[in-house]
């Protein structure tokens, strides 16, 4: 039999105003198991907690019921108090008589009556509580960052700075991501390469960071602190450790007609290539889809010119397994395809481009060496039309586009418009907008400068149709404020395409058992209070894989994710939640019902020898719960047909006792 102490809190007048606390304490005194009952003005105060500690010693209490505010508020406080008094912290139950009683009922007799019933239910539960000890598991002191864009790089650098080894897995031949493709960054107009490439070099040279470029995640197993990850390193047909990155092969390769994806197909590269001059690792890669040697076996020019002897046509994909304590997803974004937006003639004219293509057109390392020239005829455009919200903010039942605001387009369009007017003042620039959204430090000032200082024509309205006619693009658009329809002969049309999560994110989320929203953005553990953690323990989120973000926000989130990873890796042992499922082996019939409903894969089966009454032994298949993986939802307990599975802290018996106490 338990020796239970009941403590009724007044919470000033918050509870005592509608609940007769003396009466509650008095009524609970005679409940089975209760040996002590008291009330106090603020149980959570130091004096209140001391009162509990003293009562534990004096009355040799084995269980505590606190009738107070919500357990979401002070359960941890009172568990700590119990632990300080030498009790198991899980011998404490809270009766919520504030949020769910005194605050929602007005009359004293009603409130008091309900408070007594809630108290009785808590007492009934504590009577069946058992001391619980949280399981512990070791932590592998190495982190994995998936994605090598600015988010992944920042996260990796921060973790490495704290002294923990980090691996970056990047699917492309180089890290750098989207930021490496950008020209300038808003609102300061820093050159993207100037601020990104030093970080890339840092990541490449940091002794705590290993970069697996041209690699993909194949399989993820394990749980927080103990992940096992299979990584596939794709064959690049160049020995990474020998290649010096001199680039001779990329100049001599006879296969010249390969669309250059780094410049979004606006120019060509060779079959053997280094994506851009500042690539990290600076190693050549042979594209097996275009390499003549790999396709027909006749060429071998690159091997002949390579003085280091780094070319290896026999290289194969390599799969290896690594262990990690924490995983950070930093898979980033892509602009959506413009195929469905026929009205903008993106597929009909080369002079209709997306904003990311515009970045390459103005980038000194881009296809035009930084000169703003039309992709079709290489002439300087004199009228440029920017269209905002292409595919963003669409209705959920529309055939194309995304429902959300892509967040970055207003600002980068203002930047583009401003830069064009700055470099080429003879150019007329129109920006068609629905709303201009500039919440951010120095963002609105930046947009106003585009209008006031640089004379960009901002038109409230939308472009309805773009028609290529001769060397012009006929733009038909509405000007809502003037109530006019505009017809503009443009030379270049730039579409601010919505952004979407990278296609690799969905299969990755499945491997990580991390949840995603309907747009394939990773969901965070709490939208406000835990924005960088995934609901799956040990998996963290960095950058645009969680939602649209600009660079400053991405970097903040990347560092925040790193801080969370460091916090995890600092621990030698992880203490789990002791309220986990456990299976009674003697009752388990090995049916696998629990295994099928478990969202975490925490239940496995094993054959175990049992001694039978006739002294023989028998092998039986029984369920085993991995306590470090189980999150304690209790789904399996209901699925179990034999009643072998139960949840510690919320056992069948305990909840039944609560039901009985309420229904008495």
């Amino acid at each position, binding site marked *: 039999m338990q020796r239970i102490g009941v403590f009724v809190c007044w919470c000033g007048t918050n509870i005592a105003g509608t609940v007769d606390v003396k009466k509650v304490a008095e009524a609970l005194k005679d409940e089975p198991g209760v040996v002590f009952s008291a009330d106090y003005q603020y149980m959570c105060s130091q004096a209140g907690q001391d009162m509990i500690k003293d009562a534990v010693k004096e009355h040799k209490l084995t269980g505590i019921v606190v009738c107070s505010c919500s357990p979401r508020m002070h359960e941890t406080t009172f568990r700590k108090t119990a632990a300080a008094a030498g009790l198991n912290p899980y011998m404490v139950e809270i009766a919520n008589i504030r949020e769910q009683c005194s605050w929602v009922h007005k009359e004293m007799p009603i409130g008091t009556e309900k408070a007594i019933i809630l108290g009785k239910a808590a007492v009934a539960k504590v009577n069946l509580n058992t001391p619980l000890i949280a399981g512990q598991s070791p932590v592998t002191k190495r982190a994995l960052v998936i994605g090598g864009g600015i988010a992944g790089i920042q996260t990796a650098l921060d973790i490495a700075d704290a002294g923990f080894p980090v691996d970056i897995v990047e699917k492309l031949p180089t890290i750098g991501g989207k930021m490496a493709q950008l020209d300038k960054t808003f609102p300061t107009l820093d050159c993207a390469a100037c601020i990104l490439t030093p970080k890339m070099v840092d990541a490449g040279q940091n002794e705590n960071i290993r970069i697996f470029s041209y690699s993909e995640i194949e399989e993820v197993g394990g749980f927080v602190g103990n992940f096992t990850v299979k990584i596939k390193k794709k064959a690049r047909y160049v020995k990474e450790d020998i290649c010096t990155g001199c680039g001779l092969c990329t100049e001599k390769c006879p296969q010249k007609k390969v669309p250059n994806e780094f410049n979004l197909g606006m120019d060509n590269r060779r079959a053997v290539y280094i994506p851009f001059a500042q690539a990290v690792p600076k190693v050549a890669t042979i594209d097996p889809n275009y390499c003549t040697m790999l396709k027909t076996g006749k060429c071998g020019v690159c091997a002949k010119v390579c003085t280091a002897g780094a070319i290896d046509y026999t290289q194969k994909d390599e799969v290896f397994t690594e262990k990690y304590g924490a995983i950070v997803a930093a898979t980033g974004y892509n602009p959506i395809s413009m195929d469905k937006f026929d009205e903008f003639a993106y597929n009909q004219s080369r002079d209709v481009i997306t904003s990311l293509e515009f970045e390459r057109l103005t980038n000194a390392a881009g296809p035009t060496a930084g000169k703003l020239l039309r992709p079709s005829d290489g002439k300087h455009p004199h009228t440029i039309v920017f269209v905002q919200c292409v595919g963003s903010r669409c209705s959920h039942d529309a055939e194309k586009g995304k429902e959300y605001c892509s967040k970055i387009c207003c600002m980068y369009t203002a930047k583009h418009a401003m830069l064009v007017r700055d470099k080429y003042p003879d150019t007329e620039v129109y920006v068609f907008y629905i709303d201009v959204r500039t919440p951010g430090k120095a963002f609105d000032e930046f947009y106003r400068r585009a209008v006031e200082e640089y004379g960009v024509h901002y038109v409230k309205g939308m472009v309805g149709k773009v028609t290529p006619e001769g060397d012009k693009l006929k733009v038909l658009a509405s000007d809502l404020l003037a109530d006019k329809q505009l017809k503009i002969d443009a030379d270049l049309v730039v579409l601010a395409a919505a952004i979407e999560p990278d296609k690799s994110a969905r299969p990755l989320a499945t491997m990580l058992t991390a949840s995603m929203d309907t747009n394939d953005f990773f969901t965070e553990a709490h939208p406000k209070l835990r924005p960088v953690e995934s609901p799956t323990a040990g998996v963290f989120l960095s950058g645009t894989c969680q939602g649209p973000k600009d660079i400053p926000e991405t970097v903040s989130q990347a560092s925040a994710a790193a801080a969370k990873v460091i916090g995890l890796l600092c621990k030698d042992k992880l203490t789990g939640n002791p309220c986990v499922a456990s299976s009674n082996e003697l009752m388990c019939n090995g049916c696998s019902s629990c295994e099928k409903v478990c969202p975490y894969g925490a239940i496995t089966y094993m054959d175990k020898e049992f001694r039978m009454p006739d002294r023989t032994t028998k092998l039986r298949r029984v369920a085993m719960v991995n306590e470090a993986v189980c999150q304690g939802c209790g789904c399996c*307990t209901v699925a179990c047909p034999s009643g072998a599975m139960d949840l510690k802290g919320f056992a069948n018996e305990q909840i039944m006792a609560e039901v009985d106490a309420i229904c008495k």
Partner: protein
Amino acid sequence: MQVNENFKPLIVAFCCNWCSYAGADLAGNNRLNYPAEVKIIRVPCSCRVNPMFILRAFQRGADGVIICGCHPGDCHYTSGNYFTRRRMSLLFSMLDYLGIERERTRVEWVSAAEGAKFAATMNDFVAQVTALGENKRLEDLRCKE
């Protein structure tokens, strides 16, 4: 059926710790009234609610049982509320067959931000069960004092 003017039903509400229990707390924070007949039992997830608990409640004289969980797709444990939805639709149709009206049982999705919805749901449910009167089916008379 005789209608008792002073009839106060006994309602057991199972609320998941992450959404609905927090929603109930929010109703309290905002001082949104609902009848005291509702007594909440905290469970980690709505999928922890064993049909046994509901049968037990009716056996012990409850007049209505409501289960509240996170909205579909928002379950803290990814998929628990989907199991709840399926299990409860089966159980409720069985209870209906046994003579416990559908109106006495309900599954409702209440998020942590929906204090107002929690209070409104409880007001509505209590009114609904009050209109039905006392639950006689399944009640174990030996439990009565």
